[in-house]
């Protein structure tokens, strides 16, 4: 057993840290305040191969592993959770299912530009009446000649409006329940596909979260991803992988808040000494640090398992559950240790606290993660 990062991973971490510090951090405040999708940052990430880390080179990827990918999301999220989720949704929710379930033609046509970062990806499962109960899909896809005709709408879709390629889940046979759900690859410019309302959110404000509307949207038959009626499995498998990305995002947010706090308590003085001299501060920091480290071990373990074809569904759920709750706890404590200043926008911890909350909700709420974990335990 070896807990050391490989030389490759150490070098990757150096790259991610440098990039995050110089290219992402300076814009984080503005991205949040103006609710602006960081288009320029995404272009830069494309240039340096951040958009296809875990995919083989023959498909335009960097030829890396899942840990390398999780570390990227972690380091980006440390300074800007918005940037972290853009990469995570693109990689885990759009490129990954094409890589895992796509035909060779689909991989050439869609995975290659996604992995190269030339195109941005998104994933549409959630509907107004199908949240945690994803099986209650109402969007339909009906075969008409060489096309499936999609009708319905999706909500809370990350990267919507900026993505070029969407993975969309729809009912191809309502009578079959979850076995009547199929997955499709939909180009953004397909006729009948429009972007609806953009959500105003508590956190990750720069991330575009919108409604997708399908009105007689004709998708070529060959864009069916995976087998007909196997879409629910595609979605669940995709979310298992996605949870590693979100867990890494939560880990990054927590680490970022911890780092900010360590710097602050050394500088801020009350009662004639730095806050770091008070035992309460020391104990709080010790707890925060311990939980962040525990999260990291869970995240890297899940990523290791996925990369080595070991079971990872439960591991990913545990990583996401623990890292998300840690992110919420650590950012809350970070604001508390910053006192009044922590509540103001002068310091980044309030943003981190707002950003942390979503990690307990999207790609399966903490409750869903507990269901996944316990169902495997009691199996």
């Amino acid at each position, binding site marked *: 057993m070896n807990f050391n990062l490989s*030389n*490759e991973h150490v*070098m*990757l971490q*150096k*790259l991610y840290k*440098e*990039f995050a510090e110089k290219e992402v951090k300076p814009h984080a405040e503005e991205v949040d305040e103006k609710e602006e999708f960081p288009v320029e940052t995404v272009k830069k990430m494309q*240039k*340096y*191969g*951040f958009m296809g*880390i875990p995919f083989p*080179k023959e498909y335009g*990827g*960097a*030829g*890396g592993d899942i840990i*390398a990918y999780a570390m*990227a999301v972690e380091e980006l999220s440390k300074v800007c959770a918005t940037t972290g989720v853009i990469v995570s949704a693109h990689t885990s929710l759009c490129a990954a299912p094409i890589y895992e379930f796509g035909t060779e033609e689909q991989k050439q046509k869609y995975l290659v530009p996604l992995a190269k970062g030339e195109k941005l990806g998104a994933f549409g499962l959630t509907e107004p009446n199908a949240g945690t109960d994803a099986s209650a899909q109402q969007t339909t896809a009906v075969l008409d000649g060489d096309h499936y005709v999609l009708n319905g709408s999706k909500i809370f879709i990350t990267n919507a409006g900026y993505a070029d390629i969407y993975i969309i889940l729809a009912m191809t046979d309502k009578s079959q329940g979850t076995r009547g759900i199929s997955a499709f690859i939909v180009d953004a410019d397909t006729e009948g596909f429009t972007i609806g309302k953009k959500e105003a959110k508590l956190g990750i404000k720069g991330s575009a979260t919108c409604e997708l509307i399908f009105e007689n949207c004709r998708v070529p038959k060959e864009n069916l991803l995976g087998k007909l009626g196997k879409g629910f499995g595609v979605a669940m498998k995709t979310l298992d992988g996605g949870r590693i990305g979100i867990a890494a995002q939560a880990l990054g947010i927590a680490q970022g808040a911890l780092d900010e706090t360590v710097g602050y308590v050394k500088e801020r003085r009350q009662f004639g000494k730095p806050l770091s001299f008070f035992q309460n501060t020391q104990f709080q920091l010790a707890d925060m640090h311990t939980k962040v480290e525990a999260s990291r071990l869970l995240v890297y373990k899940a990523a290791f398992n996925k990369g080595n074809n070991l079971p990872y569904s439960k591991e990913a759920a545990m990583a996401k559950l623990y890292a998300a709750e840690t992110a919420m706890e650590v950012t809350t404590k970070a604001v508390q240790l910053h006192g009044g200043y922590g509540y103001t926008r002068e310091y980044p911890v309030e943003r981190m606290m707002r950003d942390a909350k979503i990690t307990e909700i999207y790609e399966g709420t903490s409750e869903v993660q507990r269901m996944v974990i316990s169902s495997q335990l009691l199996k």
Partner: protein
Amino acid sequence: MKIIVCIKQVPDTTEVRLDPKTGTLIRDGVPSIINPDDKSGLEAALKLKDELGATVTVLTMGPPQAEVALREVLAMGADRGILLTDRAFAGADTWATSCTLAAAINNIDYDLIIAGRQAIDGDTAQVGPQIAEHLKLPQVSYVEDLKVDGETLILKRMFEDGYHMVKVKTPCLITTLKEMNEPRYMSVGGIFDAYREKEIEVWNLKDIVVDPTNLGLKGSPTKVKKSFTKGAKVAGKLYEVDPKEAAKIIVDKLKEKYII
């Protein structure tokens, strides 16, 4: 065009701190980086690779750990990395260092040698010009811009109060300024290539032709007689008062010293 870039792995001196109690240098935990002026030189070379298809060989002299710096340059896009390492090279001053590097360069085919102006740990700016002298090459230092016109380079050579535009024929050596460009990052794929597909060439004393009396500590004309940290000055008075009061204190002091 064949380019050799000389780089040095240096401690990030901006991260170095003095122990306030003992006054000694805290070296632990100080990260090693590629010297900034050298990195700009590498970027200039990589740009020529992008534009003209130049090949870029990176040479460094240092301890075995300097391999990491070469992996980094490979991940940025350099073609070849050579680590010059031997106990015999240790303790060299700039004269002996440049002599050793020049001997290694004699084994490599080149049109242009690029070195950073100076390293942040020594700040001497001597090794580049001294390599050029050992190799009998024309040199242009303090370069901030570079254009290639066949076998001629057109360079912007900086001075304190302006610059010279100069022309020089290859082969030659230039030293580059950090202000020249913004070096690219490594790419994710480049990192995997650097570790999985490329090799660092390690050269020892036996791989180069050089007079052994010119090497290392023995071959160095200069010696360090002693090194020390500066004694601390007695601190003045510290005031923690409201801004108005603070302004008064400062103005009173300026009056006392006849500055106003």
